[in-house]
């Protein structure tokens, strides 16, 4: 029977904050709209798995080049490394060589990139799983370094099973980068213009050669052979100190080291050397297939050492100062020549079947297999 038209004191009072709360609806909705459109914008501009992939591609390129340089420097100044592809991988990921951090790699390792990327994604409200760089490197990163062909090294990188969630917990991306089975990020570095670590190291830094391809970098059916009776062609090989890409001839027992083996200096025909060599060959075939190189390119990298004081003034002196002498019978293929003369391994002193005395270069000697590879039959 009460007359309900009058409100009581408390209700009357509480109407004030309730009305104010209702008034915030406008602000709240405009806030929501603004932040939503902002987030969309942020996502469109800054987040996209493609952007992350591009970024990764960039850091892989940078870091791979720097790692290659660092390794060259290290081998020239210190010693051969046991496993060049492993060391390059470690340099790229952690920035360490033989377990020692290298200042050259500061800030451009993949680990650094990951830390930066996680921080950045966090700053725009994204969460990454895994977020711990150790965990990421251990279980979610695959990096393989190997020779691509005689004049290129390549790296392939894949981030496995990564999950990116946004602020509301919705999964924005889950899976591999780049997505898809068997998809990788590749980076290729040309080794042209770098010093050849093998020659420098073997001759204790007294003699050096820079890797430059010869006129016909891959002599063979496809690109043609050098002319055995041409003065110009022989001089190209003797005087230009250039490099050739050569294919192994296993039946003849001639194996030409890849560029990575030139960092290792291992006896190539030893069991350990062969295992490493065939691994590099297999990797390079994989790389070539994946990158669409249809006619398989050779991987071996060689140059010719001609111990003649008229054509090469420093080589003899360098040999002498490391206590080596020019053997009686040898092949000018640098790997075999140095293994034979400097390291004194007689199985590398190949019997020469041809020399350049016809063109006044009697010390330019070639074994049978190499002669066939360079000049054809």
């Amino acid at each position, binding site marked *: 029977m*009460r*007359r*309900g038209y009058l409100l*009581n*004191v408390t209700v*009357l*009072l509480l109407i004030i*904050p309730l009305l104010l709360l209702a008034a915030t609806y406008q602000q709240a909705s405009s*806030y929501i709209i603004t932040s939503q459109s902002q987030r969309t914008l942020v996502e469109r501009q800054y987040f996209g798995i493609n952007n992350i992939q591009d970024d990764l591609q960039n850091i892989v390129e940078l870091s791979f080049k720097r790692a290659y340089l660092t390794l060259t420097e290290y081998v020239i100044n210190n010693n051969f490394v046991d496993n060049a592809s492993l060391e390059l991988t470690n340099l790229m990921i952690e920035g360490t060589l033989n377990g020692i951090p290298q200042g050259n790699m500061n800030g451009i390792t993949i680990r650094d990139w990951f830390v930066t990327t996680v921080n950045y994604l966090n700053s725009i409200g994204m969460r990454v799983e895994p977020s711990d760089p150790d965990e990421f490197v251990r279980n979610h990163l695959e990096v393989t370094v190997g020779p691509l062909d005689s004049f290129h090294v390549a790296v392939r990188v894949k981030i496995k099973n990564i999950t990116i969630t946004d602020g509301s917990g919705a999964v924005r991306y889950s899976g591999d980068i780049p997505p898809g089975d068997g998809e990788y990020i590749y980076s290729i570095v040309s080794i042209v213009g770098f010093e050849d670590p093998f020659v420098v190291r073997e001759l204790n830094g007294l003699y050096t050669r820079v890797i430059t391809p010869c006129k016909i970098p891959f002599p063979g059916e496809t690109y043609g052979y050098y002319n055995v009776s041409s003065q110009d062609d022989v001089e190209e090989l003797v005087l230009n100190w250039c490099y050739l890409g050569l294919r192994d001839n296993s039946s003849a027992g001639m194996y030409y080291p890849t560029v990575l083996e030139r960092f290792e200096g291992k006896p190539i025909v030893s069991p350990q050397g062969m295992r490493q060599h065939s691994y590099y060959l297999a990797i390079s075939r994989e790389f070539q297939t994946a990158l669409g190189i249809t006619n398989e390119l050779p991987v071996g990298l060689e140059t010719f050492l001609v111990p003649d004081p008229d054509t090469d003034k420093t080589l003899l002196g360098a040999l002498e100062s490391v206590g080596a002498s020019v053997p009686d019978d040898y092949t000018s293929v640098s790997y075999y020549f140095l293994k034979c003369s400097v390291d004194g391994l007689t199985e590398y002193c190949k019997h020469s079947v041809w020399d350049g005395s016809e063109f006044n270069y009697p010390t330019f000697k070639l074994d049978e297999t190499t002669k066939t590879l360079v000049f054809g039959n």
Partner: protein
Amino acid sequence: MDIESFLYTIGSTAESAFGKCMDTIRGFLFPVPSSKPPDLKITRGVTEKRNFTFHELISLHLQLCFMTYLVVNFAVVFLTGTPLYLLAVSIPYFLYLRYFIIRYGNFLIEEKPYRVFYYGISLISFLAFLGYSLLKLASPEIYHYYAYVGAIAVAVLLFRHYFKATFGRDYTYGTVEEVKNDLVRVFIHDDMAANIKPGFYWLPAVEEAEPGRVVKVLVEDKTFRSARPVRILEVYLTDQSSQSSTEPKEETE
């Protein structure tokens, strides 16, 4: 028609209209308590029932004015958000409130709680909306708005606490309407101090409770709701009743 007398009529009408106008303004700005109850057609029109006491009518009118003020404030804040508009709405409102309370406050049974309450609550809402519109000008993060609203809610509850502590009582007065066996039907007025709604309540009977007699009623407070009358404390005999103004029919006749 004589043009002279016509002009004279116009002149005298204008003069008296001006005088009336000035009187109205003076009356509005410097109100004096009125001996005549207010008319309040609109407020009367809000409800169907016509047999309101003046006390109820004035209380309802104050409440409706305040609600209108709130709604207008809300509209201003929501649509424009300019503090100047709020001032433009509030100054006339406060003048009218002051005018109305001074002029007709004596028709309320107990004036002071109503006066304090409506002045207080109007001031709080004015400041709250003014602050809100200023906050809107600064356009901060949304969380600041919620913090502000929370602060206002706290201020409002503090005011309620103050009001209750100062004017609150646990009894009110009513008039016995009907006696039935062990129950009496009591008419109770809108009483802000006791926070009770007007209406007819059945209460346990006491001796001497006869229709027309004024009684003192114990009320039980309920949080966030109106208080409920519980039982009759005291019965004032007709001849000694000084609370006859609570008798509704006297004033509504």
